[in-house]
């Protein structure tokens, strides 16, 4: 029992997720239908994949806002290049663009030393420009059948994309827990100068994390394109980066860095997903749903603040 309370005191987001699911069931019993639950997971898998990348950056004490328009740019490239260089080439080029944006973010933040907010905001605007220029402000349909089939296909109750998400979570867990880079990320995010004192290359750590986030954001765009069978310049705009950051933080990772894990991002993304799902099965208007998401985020963060303050007080009494 003591172990359970300790587990819950660290993972405050789990009781919150369960609470929201109970409320959802009360509002509409069909929420608990297995089909619907798988649906929630499938619908949020791409957001989850991007939240993996964002988790690395947030654990390191930064955040990346360029995600929201980077994904519409890579979606456009993945669709638009298919007739010219084939689907594999198109996907590779799109991933490469994600990589390059990640490298630019990483170089400017880690090595030039510019504030991450400003850097990633600038990259967000830059990508937004290209996301409109490249497709000439038009939507582009994906011509490859295999590409669309991957986006919508299922293995068991889960989509391919969901399986990809699960694999991503496992890899991210391994990297964060069992590699030097993972632990260095926590150390650098928790106390950069202490990490530096311990001989950790803090700049390199930051750089790598921005690159991871760039690549996974780019992948997110490609997957959206595959799922929808098309790209549109407005994809992700205006708040996808915020929802992804919110997912990571709602799960329990500290926005200031150094604390959290990859499973928190899963729980956080699912909290957002469940809220959305209730709104849609109860036929709430979309803007009501947006409002509720905001309100719930504040409630969750206040609850988390109280729980962690209580923990800090208990720590002092030792």
């Amino acid at each position, binding site marked *: 029992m003591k172990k359970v309370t300790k587990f819950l005191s660290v993972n405050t987001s789990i009781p919150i997720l369960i609470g929201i699911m109970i409320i959802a069931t009360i509002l509409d019993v069909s929420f608990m239908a297995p089909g619907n639950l798988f649906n929630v997971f499938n619908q949020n898998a791409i957001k989850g994949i991007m939240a993996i990348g964002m988790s690395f950056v947030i654990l390191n004490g930064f955040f990346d806002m360029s995600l929201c328009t980077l994904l519409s740019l890579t979606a456009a490239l993945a669709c638009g290049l298919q007739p010219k260089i084939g689907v594999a080439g198109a996907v590779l080029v799109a991933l490469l663009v994600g990589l390059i944006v990640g490298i630019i973010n990483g170089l400017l933040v880690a090595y030039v030393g510019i504030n991450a907010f400003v850097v990633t905001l600038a990259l967000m605007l830059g990508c937004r420009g290209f996301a409109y220029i490249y497709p000439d402000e038009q939507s582009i349909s994906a011509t490859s059948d295999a590409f669309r089939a991957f986006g919508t296909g299922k293995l068991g109750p889960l989509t391919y994309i969901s399986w990809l998400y699960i694999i991503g979570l496992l890899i991210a867990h391994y990297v964060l*827990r069992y*590699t030097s880079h993972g*632990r260095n990320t926590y150390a650098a995010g928790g*106390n950069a100068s*202490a990490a530096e*004192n311990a*001989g950790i290359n803090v700049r390199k750590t930051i750089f790598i994390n921005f690159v991871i986030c760039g690549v996974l954001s780019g992948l997110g765009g490609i997957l959206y394109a595959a799922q929808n069978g098309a790209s549109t310049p407005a994809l992700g705009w205006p708040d996808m980066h915020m929802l992804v950051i919110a997912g990571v933080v709602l799960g329990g990772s500290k926005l200031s860095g150094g604390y959290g894990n990859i499973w928190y991002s899963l729980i956080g993304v699912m909290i957002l997903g469940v809220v959305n799902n209730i709104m849609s099965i109860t036929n709430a208007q979309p803007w009501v749903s947006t409002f509720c998401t905001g309100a719930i985020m504040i409630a969750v963060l206040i609850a988390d603040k109280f729980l962690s303050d209580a923990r800090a007080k208990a720590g002092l009494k*030792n």
Partner: protein
Amino acid sequence: MADEYLLEMKDIVKTFPGVKALDGAGIKVRAGEVVALCGENGAGKSTLMKCLYGSYHADSGEIYFKGEKVNFKNPDEAKAAGVILIFQELSLITDLTVAENMFLGSQPKKGRSIDWKKMNADADKVLQDLNSTVKSTDYVRDLPISQQQMVEIARGIALGAKILILDEPTSSLTEREKNALFDIIRKLKKQGVGIIYISHKMDEIFDICDEAVVLRDGKLTGQFRIKDIVLDDLIQAMIGRHMDNYFTKCTAEPGREVLRVEGLTAHGYFRDITFSVREKEVVGFYGLVGAGRSEIMEAIFGVRHLDAGKIFIDGKEVKISSSVEAVKHGIGFVTENRKEQGLLLPKSCRENISLAKLPQIKKGLFVDDSKTNEIYDKYHDAMQISSPSSEQPIVYLSGGNQQKVVIGKWLAMDPKILILDEPTRGIDIGAKSEIHNMIAHLAEQGLAVIVISSEMPEIMGVSNRIYTMAQGRITGELGETEISEENLMRNIVITDSTQKA
């Protein structure tokens, strides 16, 4: 002869621009012994240790470690060789576990993966050797400060420490925690680790150390066997400096009492503080860093909560619960870290100097620029600020000129009482004496001035009267004729246990 010592530093000289920080300093440490490193604030203790640790590089001098001549280029090299410095401020990552902190940057691996089992086992072994109750899987954030310090020491051991440098390790510990630390130190001695123990607390030095090295003005005054000496010998060795006579003291006859406090107490910081300051008088507060001097002034200035006590200004009791009220009562406070608390660095001299006065000089919603120019002109001349123009951003001025701007800013408020906390920290010698002159001058014009300083010559040079403090209490009041290095030093090393003895 040299190989009898584990570590020997000889004739170390280190010059910083304008200051000779070390001038023939040294220390010798045998394996399994604890050597105290003592001296006043600024005697060169930290500089000497940083020269050993590779953070600084000595201009000349020799360091022998395990009989070989060494010169560590950076802290990493020193660590690799087994010289571990534990800073006064802990440098742990609180959201990681004890084991992770101990092996940060050098975790044991199985293939490419971190071997958590081995890491935790290795950490537990070190912790058990130290008789610690801390477990490898505990999170550092859940540990009290004393146990965090234990983790730092354990980290040093895990790295293979041969020489462990502890910088004021007991400053944040309770009596019981201190005893636990001493047990660890005794254990390490048995394991053959050489320990350098930097402390001001005489009782601790006599309790735990085998030898004591005394530095004065960057010079080695002597290395003593603790069992051969008494407290007075050590104090004598620490002081006895030749006093420079360039200080100008306020010579006016003090007037009426302006500020009086009775029984001020803030739990955990200071207790039962009673003192008074008169106009045309400079009152010094001398004590070690952490004695509670700044905290008292913050409480008087209304930015720190008081648990008990009364404050009287001009004989009337006042309640001050914010800095705004303090300013209304005519108190000015030049804080010790001007860059964080006193200045808007990118803003101009003019804007900074008129900052505190803004509420009085605004025209409607806006600031009246002509008034700020008037203020600037007046205090620029009075304070002899050398700045190319009134619009020069303050960040480009020297430390001395920045400090003059801060003082000018408070003078623009016409205070009755001016509190200066470490007024010349980080300021070159020339500007220092200008500020000292200014302090005397301000007092002669009728101000009641309180100066906090950790520098003995400064506090002796500017004060008409000095209160000494140790561990949150006033331990003595020295009138003009009683001010001497010996009295000051004796009063500030008094601790509860030495008093009983």
